[in-house]
């Protein structure tokens, strides 16, 4: 029954909730970001990060540093924390934690398939895969010629297998089919994750429903904007939207027929939570939309920590760390390109 998690949650989940709240307190603050934004070189950034939890991961990196090195090492820290939590989790928390990584698994599958289509070396592609999305037979993806083979040879034994039922065809893999496959898989994953959280019930279901609904809506808007002016038909676009969220179903019907950013704005402004996001943008402009969405996402994830005895704190923590890594990537790029005046275009403060 909802409201009585306090009686039993700590038996299995109390230790790990304490661990994740401890990790949360290690997130970079506004003061840290101000120091980082004033750095002149990537070595300065490394020096500032050495005083944070990223210190041990960057201290042995030789100069000259590259932005991708900083991002890789920061990601390694996140992966270590995740694996530490996963190995100590019991059901159903362990399944919940695994669900968090399926998005990265889908990205890795698409990376390998796309790279193979472009005649790239598999080892080179594996090095670029996200560590949270790795699985045993991932290298075998390179031999598949179409989605049916992809499923039969490799993915049938992975957690992504159930998501393939909607996109199995014998058509050869090309750029558009791969993109449709990516978005169809992600749609199926989000819907499955949503159903799993609903089954868990309680505070987890309530908070995760809100977070996943926002993610589904954000994806719908991004798919709409990115498909404007492409060969993707309205019906195909509609099929990529998830079957839940604030925009489902009427918002999706309107988004499916949008032909420019102003029409998207007109649709989204009918929904109060998204009105404030689009109010920050001027007409015809979409450059700052990502930052506006990230700011709203960070706000919702921070609010998840205001309540105890639920699993959403783990999901929120992982997302906040990924946002922090994105911030570090952007700051590093602006410093490396000597464009510090643009650093605040995309940095989203967490605290």
């Amino acid at each position, binding site marked *: 029954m909802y409201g009585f998690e306090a009686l039993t949650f700590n038996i299995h989940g109390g230790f790990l909730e304490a661990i994740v709240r401890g990790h949360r307190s290690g997130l970079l603050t506004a003061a840290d970001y101000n120091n980082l934004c004033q750095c002149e070189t990537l070595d300065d950034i490394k020096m500032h990060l050495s005083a944070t939890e990223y210190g041990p991961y960057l201290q042995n990196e030789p100069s000259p540093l590259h932005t*991708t090195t900083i*991002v890789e090492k920061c990601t390694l820290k996140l992966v270590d924390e995740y694996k530490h939590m996963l190995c100590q989790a019991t059901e159903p928390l362990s399944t919940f934690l695994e669900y968090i990584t399926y998005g990265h698994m889908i*990205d*890795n599958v698409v*990376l390998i398939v*796309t*790279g193979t289509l*472009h*005649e*790239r070396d598999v080892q*080179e*592609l594996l*090095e*670029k*895969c*996200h560590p949270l999305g790795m699985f045993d037979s991932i290298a075998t993806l390179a031999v598949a010629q179409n989605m049916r083979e992809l499923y039969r040879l490799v993915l049938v034994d992975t957690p992504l297998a159930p998501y393939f039922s909607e996109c199995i065809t014998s058509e050869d893999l090309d*750029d*558009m089919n*791969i*993109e*449709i496959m*990516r*978005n169809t898989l992600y749609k199926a994953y989000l819907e499955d994750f949503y159903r799993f959280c609903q089954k868990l019930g309680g505070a987890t279901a309530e908070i995760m429903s809100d977070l996943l609904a926002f993610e589904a809506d954000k994806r719908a808007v*991004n*798919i709409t*904007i*990115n*498909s404007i*002016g*492409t*060969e*993707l038909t309205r019906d195909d676009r509609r099929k990529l939207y998830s079957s839940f969220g604030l925009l489902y179903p009427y918002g999706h019907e309107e988004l499916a027929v949008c032909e420019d950013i102003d029409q998207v704005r007109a649709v989204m402004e009918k929904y109060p939570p998204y009105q404030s996001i689009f109010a920050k943008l001027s007409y015809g402009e*979409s*450059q700052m939309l*990502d930052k506006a969405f990230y700011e709203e996402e960070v706000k919702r994830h921070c609010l998840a920590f205001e309540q105890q005895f639920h699993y959403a704190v783990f999901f929120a923590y992982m997302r906040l760390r990924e946002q922090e890594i*994105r911030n570090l*990537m*952007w700051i590093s*790029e*602006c410093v490396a*390109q000597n*464009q510090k005046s*643009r650093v605040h*275009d*995309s940095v989203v403060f967490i605290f």
Partner: protein
Amino acid sequence: MEEEEVGSSENGEVPTAKQEEEGEQNVVKFLDSMDSYLNLLDSLSSTLRQGWLELASARHSMGASRINSTLFDLKHHAASTSLQVTQHDVDSIMNQPHFTLCKWTSPDNKKVGSEEAKFDEDELLQRKSTSPHLRHRGMQYSEIQEKRLESNRSPRIVDDQVQKERSKTLSMFGALVSPKLRAAQLSFETALETLVEIANMRSSMLSTHDQVQKVLESRME
């Protein structure tokens, strides 16, 4: 010298004044082309900076796994843009190379590509602030207007095809890419056009420099 004697009128000083005037014009042309060259270099630098930042912004938006060098297509395919180098006669002695960018001239769109190339050549010729002799090199002005009218008859079809070619080039990063990546593509495309303008401007600058040098040497003799 023979031309001067033949062309001389009752007043023996006219050829000398004419020579001086030509010399001054060459110096002005040289300084103009150098000024344009330096402005174009600045413009190229700022366009490239903008392009690189937009690419980083696209990477931030779409994720590092979607924008990285391992996704570049290594299969053999025709270049979508090519550069033509032609030699033009400035005078009876010197040749000046002229560079023309032919954008989106893949084998599937040869017709569109040649129209786009004509657009580019006309734009480049129009933008030059040098003398009419260089501006309409090898072409009369009326011919340029006629060709522009012909190509203006179907600009929409050309635009659609060009957009398709642009999307095809970006498809190595996926079929649905962020508008930031498209903006980066446009910036780098502009940078490429600026590079060709720089090459033409440099060619013009070196040519006028040689002419000025020749005049100075003949006077010293």
